[in-house]
């Protein structure tokens, strides 16, 4: 009975939040498209990375949802095998590390997480050792998620950046729901919060820091 409740609670919550997430992705895509710099002819790479990270996160919840709908049961732990969901979560971590490397100008970290995950997959392909693969994949995603989210908080506060701090709060919620995956109530609260928080965040309505006052000289120069 408990399993049935767990199944329906998660399925209905996820399906209910999906339109919100799709709307968020649409908003983020629009913002990225509008970020074209007419002088350089390039778009804002930070916006692209934020969009990609949320796309990967969305694909990570898509696979278990489809599985629940098709097989009418909860999927097993996704870290045991190489599946679309585990790959998506690893990509969320890797994109997060790339974003942090980009913001902090640490070129050597730019592709580090991508290479590491490629190494994990190659190691599994050559050794066919699923136990080690499970440990590596689980460790990478767990440590990676907690680390990049922590650094998002630090970076957001340090640079007084609403985008990064907002993203830190956004990804903090799936970490909590993932940590208490056996508790459907926490899952409902977390995804409910994401649905409420996501839209104003992507529309840029949430401001954590006061806007810097415009200097008089700058205002004059702008005419």
């Amino acid at each position, binding site marked *: 009975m408990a399993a049935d409740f767990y199944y329906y609670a998660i399925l209905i919550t996820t399906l209910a939040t999906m339109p919100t997430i799709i709307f968020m992705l649409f908003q983020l895509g629009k913002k990225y498209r509008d970020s074209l710099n007419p002088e350089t002819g390039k778009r804002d790479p930070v916006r692209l990375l934020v969009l990609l990270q949320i796309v990967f996160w969305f694909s990570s919840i898509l696979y278990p949802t489809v599985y629940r709908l098709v097989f009418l049961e909860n999927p097993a732990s996704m870290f045991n095998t190489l599946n679309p969901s585990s790959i998506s979560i690893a990509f969320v971590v890797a994109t997060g590390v790339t974003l942090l490397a980009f913001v902090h100008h640490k*070129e*050597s*970290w*730019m*592709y*580090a997480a991508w*290479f*590491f995950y490629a*190494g994990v997959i*190659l*190691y599994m392909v*050559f*050794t066919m*050792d699923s136990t*080690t693969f499970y440990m590596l994949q689980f460790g990478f995603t767990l440590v990676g998620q907690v680390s990049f989210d922590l650094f998002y908080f630090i970076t957001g506060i340090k640079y007084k950046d609403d985008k990064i701090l907002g993203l830190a709060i956004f990804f903090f919620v799936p970490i909590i729901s993932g940590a208490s995956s056996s508790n459907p109530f926490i899952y409902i609260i977390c995804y409910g919060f994401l649905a409420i928080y996501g839209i104003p965040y992507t529309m840029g309505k949430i401001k954590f820091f006061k806007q810097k006052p415009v200097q008089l000289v700058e205002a004059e120069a702008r005419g």
Partner: protein
Amino acid sequence: MLAQVEPITGDPFGIGWIATFAYAILAIMALLPLIKKRKQGVQSFNKSVILWLLFSLFMTIDRFVEYILIMNFGLEQGSTKIGANLSTWYFVPFVSVMAEFLFILYILRKYKFYSIPFILIFFISLSLYQYADITAFAIIITISELVPVILYLWKGWKNKDGLIYSLGIFTAFDFFVPYAIHYSMIFGGNLAGTIIYYPLFFSALFAVAYLNLGTWGWLDRHVFYDKEREKQIKNAWIGRLIEIEKKKPEVKKNGGKSIVLECPVCHVQSKRVFAHEVVLQRAKNEKGIVKMLLNEDKQICEHPFVAYVDREFAIRGYEAIDMKV
């Protein structure tokens, strides 16, 4: 069928210790000119060469000590292992080769790929810890070793740069060639005992001796020697000496300071005297560094270049001029 040669055990003449001592002396000697020149040319490059060589030389001495322990105290190869096969016998050379790989990435300015050597160390160590098979280790170490060797030798020969060429020979003979000989002796020659460790010592000694030829400039003077170019340099020097001679009273009046300049393209060196006061006057900028456009009249070599000189008259860096409109 090859005959089994009676193996010699132990190291009766103490060759291992002598080789280790000689290697340490030669290694220090090879580093001396680099340390002396660390404030000339491109500083960060010189510092990186020194750091990489220090690490590499330390690792080789560490390997030598392991060979001695194996020869004299009956330890077996990889007896200090943890897990299936993770021992200093494999780990130390692998870290050494990865340091070379990292240095090559630095030279090629591939900063975005800096993480690859560390990731390779992690996965190869994990594979050695879990499995006795060393195929992955052998393949990766061979590729990571051969690429720097080929690059150094090719770049050194092409640019007629003795230091880079010597780095190629050093990289090849410090690790790759001796191990190839070592395993050929075991599997091809059916040999055993102490004798199979001697190529590892002698080859590394040859490598560090050759490195000395490169760092002390012997290869530049005698192997990559170009008569035609020397003639041009001499002519330029004579022209410059005449010019300096003409300007001497003025320099003396202002208090001159001589600086050894090196062209960043062809590495031709030349000494020039600059007036103290003028340089110090120009160095009153934010960073305290004077940017000098040099060799416009092509007296040193064919390439005009920019030198960055600080208040102490030390060269902080060079920059080549690609185009002049």
